[in-house]
């Protein structure tokens, strides 16, 4: 089994493991070492061919392997690069890499609306976490941001294309988990967008999983919208005997009192669902009596949900109007003082 060293921590992993998976194994072995895990916005271990797009998980490889110790000339995406025996990886220990990653995060944010206060994903958004942990102080982008009108794609899903980071996860869910993809990526370059092209409802047994895999608030649950900020709800593990083939009925119920506000898949510490659930579980069983409740969901420690409040992120000041330009922001004294 190949041995890899990430930021000085060595682990032995099965053949074919990627650097990202190896780093996660280090993080699972010892929580204190979790800092070696690169952020991943597009990779999703349950979706084939995912990863490689967002470039947030880039790492440096100063030593390729014992056999070929040459360094890799450019940073590589850890989510799609396989570990070789004797490989050495720098994630947090290389300043040029940290700089490169900050650059990627800045790019991801230049067209992002930063409308967190009105976004349903606030509190569960991976982009929020990412910019908090890897962002630079302020964006230098002063041009008009790309905007799109929010649209309903079916009865249950709202698409806020403005917030999308084009991670392709939802496309891969539709392709690999559902039986009939009707949405995809149209146009190219920075005009690319998630769309059905002709107005069309996304409607099949597993389509709701698109919401769970979306790392930002681009795809949200219309049946939950604005019902509550996520940090005012109480997540509970629950299950039921689900008849839909392929669904194990294991979910998280997001409760307010006894009321089921939302049903989602169970996300692990890397933000990935443990299994994909069907739309019947997600939308049609919003009645506590339909479920066997197992107990409170163990939500990750560093997450804002468990902190019980929406913590102000360094780069994302709370705004009450759609995102203004940065120079305007800089003028606002109240923000400067923070």
């Amino acid at each position, binding site marked *: 089994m190949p041995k890899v060293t990430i930021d000085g921590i060595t682990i032995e992993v099965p053949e074919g493991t990627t650097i990202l998976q190896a780093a996660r194994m280090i993080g699972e072995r010892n929580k204190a070492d979790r800092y070696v895990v690169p952020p991943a916005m597009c990779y999703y271990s349950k979706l084939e061919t995912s990863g490689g797009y967002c470039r947030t998980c880039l790492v440096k490889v100063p030593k390729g392997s014992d056999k070929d110790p040459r360094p890799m000339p450019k940073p590589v995406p850890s989510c799609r690069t396989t570990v070789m025996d004797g490989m050495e990886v720098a994630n947090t220990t290389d300043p040029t890499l940290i700089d490169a990653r900050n650059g990627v995060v800045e*790019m991801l944010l230049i067209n992002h609306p930063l409308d967190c206060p009105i976004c349903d994903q606030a509190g569960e958004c991976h982009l929020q976490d990412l910019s908090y942990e890897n962002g630079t102080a302020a964006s230098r982008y002063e041009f008009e941001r790309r905007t799109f009108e929010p649209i309903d794609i079916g009865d249950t899903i709202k698409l806020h294309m403005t917030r999308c980071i084009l991670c392709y996860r939802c496309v891969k869910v539709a392709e690999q988990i559902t039986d009939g993809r009707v949405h995809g990526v149209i146009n190219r370059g*920075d005009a*690319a967008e998630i769309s059905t092209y002709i107005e069309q409802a996304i409607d099949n047994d597993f389509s709701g999983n698109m919401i769970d895999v979306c790392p930002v608030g681009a795809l949200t649950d219309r049946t939950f919208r604005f019902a509550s900020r996520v940090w005012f709800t109480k997540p509970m593990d629950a299950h039921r005997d689900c008849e839909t083939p392929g669904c194990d009925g294991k979910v998280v119920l997001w409760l307010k009192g006894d009321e089921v506000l939302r049903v989602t898949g169970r996300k692990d510490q890397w933000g990935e669902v443990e299994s994909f659930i069907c739309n019947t579980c997600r939308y049609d069983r919003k009645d506590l009596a339909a479920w066997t409740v197992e107990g409170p969901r163990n939500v990750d420690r560093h997450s804002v949900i468990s902190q019980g409040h929406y913590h102000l992120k360094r780069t994302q000041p709370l705004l009450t109007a759609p995102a203004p330009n940065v120079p305007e922001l800089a003028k606002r004294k109240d923000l400067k003082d923070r």
Partner: protein
Amino acid sequence: MARKILFEHIDKPGIRGLEGYRAHGGYRSVEKALRTMAPEAVVEEVKKSGLRGRGGAGFPTGMKWSFLAKPEGVPRYLVVNADESEPGTFKDRYLMERIPHLLIEGMVTSSFALGANTAFIYIRGEYFHVARILEQAIGEARAAGWLGRNILGSGFDLDIHVQVGAGAYICGEETALLESLEGKRGNPRLKPPFPAVKGLYQCPTVVNNVETIAAVVPIVNDGGEEYAKVGVGRSTGTKLISAGGNIKRPGVYEIELGLPCDEFINSDEYCGGVDGRAFKAVVPGGSSVPIVPYELFLRTAKGEPRLMSYESLSDGGFVSGTMLGSGGFYAYNDAQCIVRSTWNHARFYHHESCGQCSPCREGTGWLDKVLERLELGEGRAEDIDLLWDIQRKIEGNTICPLGDAAAWPVASAIRHFRDEFEYHVTHREKVKDPRHFAREPFRRTARPQTV
């Protein structure tokens, strides 16, 4: 007259048809290879020739061919890259229009060497008229037995198909090209796996440029060693250069690698010197390679005369050198504005980014907008450093080299022509006139910067 290898017969009447082509020794390489050589021997000759890919990257062709995986029972493919979208490049079009059988012949010989029984020519959609010429040539070749079943009784079968694209520069990148050939969006694939292992339809595939494959013909005819005698050092053979911009004699020239740059740009056999008052800058290998001041094109930083070769053009690295690239050569006279040109380059890459990865998708648009602002007289002094920082954050962090290609022209323009960028900040009113430097040519105030 310099020696011509590919274009030896290009001016002969009837060379476009099979009969005329054959009359000038056409398809000899097929006869030689299929009748007297083993496939490995052909690969060996290509290795000996030192031929390097003519599509831009200059990777040794023989080595690429020897990487081709050969699993049992899996077809292999040869795909010819005729996408030719690199701004400044029009040599493949010229070759295919005038001497299409040279490409077909090279494909038969190369496919034999690689053990491919199906080969594709992926040609950009705008070249529909060229695709028709190729299809006609393929028809002729098939009727005459140079294609099809059991060619020359050797037991070797080959079909060639022409596939048109539909307008996307990125489809020149080999894995995007394969995606497009499979009927998909031209999104480059992550490498590894490389096409030599998993290419078209996940089968082992070699992708080569039109000119590369054409060069296989003389290599097999005369032997790899003969070919390697032409050129200089590791830049063997000849190269097609498509020359444009502000020169007296634009056109496609076949040069021996190692030709002095001065001779190429100034002699009447080639570019014929400047069209206008004086040369300012040169882009020698397509828009993706760094732009260099005219003086640095003629001479390296060490003061040695620069040659048209892979090594000499990149002498000095990115600080004072550039690259041979695809051979898309264009020169600027002193009425041209480097900021405007850089904006145009950036706009091109913004338009052509496939949008898969975030640094390129977002960064190319950002570069475009900041450069637009500078050129239109609305820039600020900090914009120059901002541009530098944006390009730095794209370069090396993307899936495919388009990100680098977008970054380099910006970096090199700032490096060598920073004074012009500064002028745009200090003379905002003047630069609002789009022809500002045509009226009043820009005088360089600073020495080439070495950032």
